[in-house]
């Protein structure tokens, strides 16, 4: 082999060629993708709208657990539907098992209580069904006095520092998902309206479970509206909130939807 060919075939030259080829092939697709996405962002998401009239998540969850013991329910969250989130712990669904994805709106809204009894300073509610709620809208009788509720033989004081002005809440985008106007109307009819968000350690939002036929006594409260989506999920697990205040959606496989 002549010296010239040997020089051309040196490891250094081969490596430079290799680098150029690698850059070309590795970034060709990436640049095409970037170009496509920058032109038409989110166009890849084809989502079927979830029928609004279906009973919310419990039904889906119940269906799911019956059909699949291996996985816990898989939810796609987001604004873009793309992410997979797990309810509790366990394996996610394998993609090939998801035939059709549905978009489900996070139904955070007012949950009406049917059985309410009013006394002078008290309000008793009796739940006809199991309820999971995130917070309470309350109409306070006397703002100078303490507000509390009594359940399971235990009194719980609603800490003043955790009471938020209802006007502030109403302004919050996407706070109510359904019946927005009606919900706002109900809340605005409260004279001394405050919102109380249930939380655990470190002000971490959480849901609270009211049992079927459970009696709960509220003191110093005239009117009450419960708020939540009736899902028994710790908010930090699934009801994510981010700095952009997006409302969340979930999608599940069609076979788990009635």
């Amino acid at each position: 082999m002549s010296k010239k060919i040997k020089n051309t075939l040196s490891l250094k030259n081969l490596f430079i060629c290799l680098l150029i080829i690698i850059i070309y092939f590795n970034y060709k697709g990436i640049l095409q993708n970037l170009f496509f996405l920058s032109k038409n962002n989110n166009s890849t998401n084809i989502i079927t709208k979830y029928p609004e009239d279906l009973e919310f998540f419990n039904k889906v969850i119940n269906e799911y657990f019956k059909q699949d013991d291996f996985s816990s329910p898989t939810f796609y969250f987001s604004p873009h539907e793309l992410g997979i989130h797990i309810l509790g712990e366990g394996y996610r669904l394998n993609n090939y098992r998801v035939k059709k994805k549905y978009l489900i709106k996070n139904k955070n809204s007012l949950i009406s209580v049917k059985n309410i009894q009013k006394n002078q300073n008290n309000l008793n509610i009796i739940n006809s069904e199991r309820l999971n709620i995130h917070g309470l809208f309350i109409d306070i009788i006397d703002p100078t006095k303490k507000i509390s509720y009594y359940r399971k033989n235990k009194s719980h004081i609603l800490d003043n520092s955790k009471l938020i002005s209802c006007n502030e809440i109403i302004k919050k985008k996407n706070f109510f998902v359904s019946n927005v106007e009606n919900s706002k109307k109900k809340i605005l009819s409260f004279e001394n309206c405050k919102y109380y968000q249930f939380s655990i350690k470190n002000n971490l939002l959480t849901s609270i479970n009211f049992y079927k036929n459970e009696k709960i006594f509220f003191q110093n409260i005239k009117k009450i509206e419960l708020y939540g989506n009736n899902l028994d999920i710790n908010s930090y697990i699934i009801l994510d909130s981010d700095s952009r205040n997006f409302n969340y959606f979930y999608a599940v496989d069609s076979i788990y939807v009635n």
Partner: protein
Amino acid sequence: MLISSVLFVLTFYLLGNLILRRHLFLEKFFIGLVIFYLTLILSNLLGQNYKDYILIIKIICILSFIHFIIIKYDSFIKFKLKKKINFINFFISVFFIILLTENYIDIKLYTLEAGDALAYWFNKTKYFLYSPGLEHFPKPDYPNFLSSIWSFSFYIFEKDYDQSRIIIPLVLFLGILLIFQKIRLIFKDNNIYLNSILFLIILIHFSTYSFAASYRFSNSGYVDGLLSLFLMIGFLYIYLSINNETFNKKDYFFGIVILGISSSIKNEGFVISTAVFFILNLYFYLFFKKKFTDNLNILIVNSLIFLIIIFIPILLSFYLESLKITVSSENIADFINVSNLFKIDLHIERFYLIFRYFLINCYYNLEIFFPLLLILLYKLSLSFIRSKLFILFIGFSLFFVIYLYSLYIVTAFPLEWHLSTSFNRIFFQFIGIFSSFAFLIINYKEKS
């Protein structure tokens, strides 16, 4: 993004600076990551709030910065920077920033969507940030290293789960840069151009390698890329410390810590790092017997440190599981079936499929294997084949093949499903060490 990246790097560097002296900048950075992870776990066990923990970290960093200024006041910037500015360094820095920016754009365009990233690593990240109590600890049997450092990024980016992922490519690229820097320091008189091109090829491969639905190890939130990197650093440092004229305790210790922390990145890290540790120490014993026996005490102490570090995630998982109200019903027999190893018919049945996946993945990682092959051909000679490095390379390659093969022989999951969902990730975990071999072989010189 660049400012935040600088902030991350400085925070972890300053943490590392507290413990290490006379080490490279990036070595301190990596030790800083380890300190951050270990102290975050400790603070969680003590029931401390994340904000308080970050406050402590900030105070420590300020103190470390003051200490740094006092110590380095005379030599600061003056002469070293000028010396380090040259065409290659400038080109590499620009390339590095371009790759990081490209990853950032990718992160911005593709939201956090990868399954395991969301289910395990990001879920844990959120846990660290909100610290709702140990009884809520998600997936205690999964390690926590990435989630711990991701939580810091998540905190800095004000809970933006998309942007906060930039910490992953940043750590990945800095790790490869550390390898390159170390190689340049150790093999001073070797071809800088070849080393630089190899460095860029490895950087590109780690940055662009994608799997499943076009997820990239560099930014999708998966930990396999990071595991590959830590194994690569650990392996290279231990190897170089042994191969030095005198046994380099400093590098050996650094290698042990980084290799040990692999078990805190992914459960597979426990097995691979332990195997790498034994292979390297066996190599040390066989080929450098005198050096080995002379430094036996140091080796024993370091081995104990290694054992403690690799067992941290296991001990933590036992403790956290004991706190859980609902006990996990998972059983090891649900995942592996060791008796499969002795079933000949199963070997015959599974061999072809495993081999097919093996070849496919060799092709997917051609960016590493092809240069490695070129280097091997270039260096091929009788003396090279007889060299210790080549024997180690063959030994490690054998371990790699046996590990992959036996893993899919003993799996209790449906084989095709398991291969299609995990083979590329398991395979990639070894790519870092093969990249190290590429560097080592390219710099190999026959003894005259």
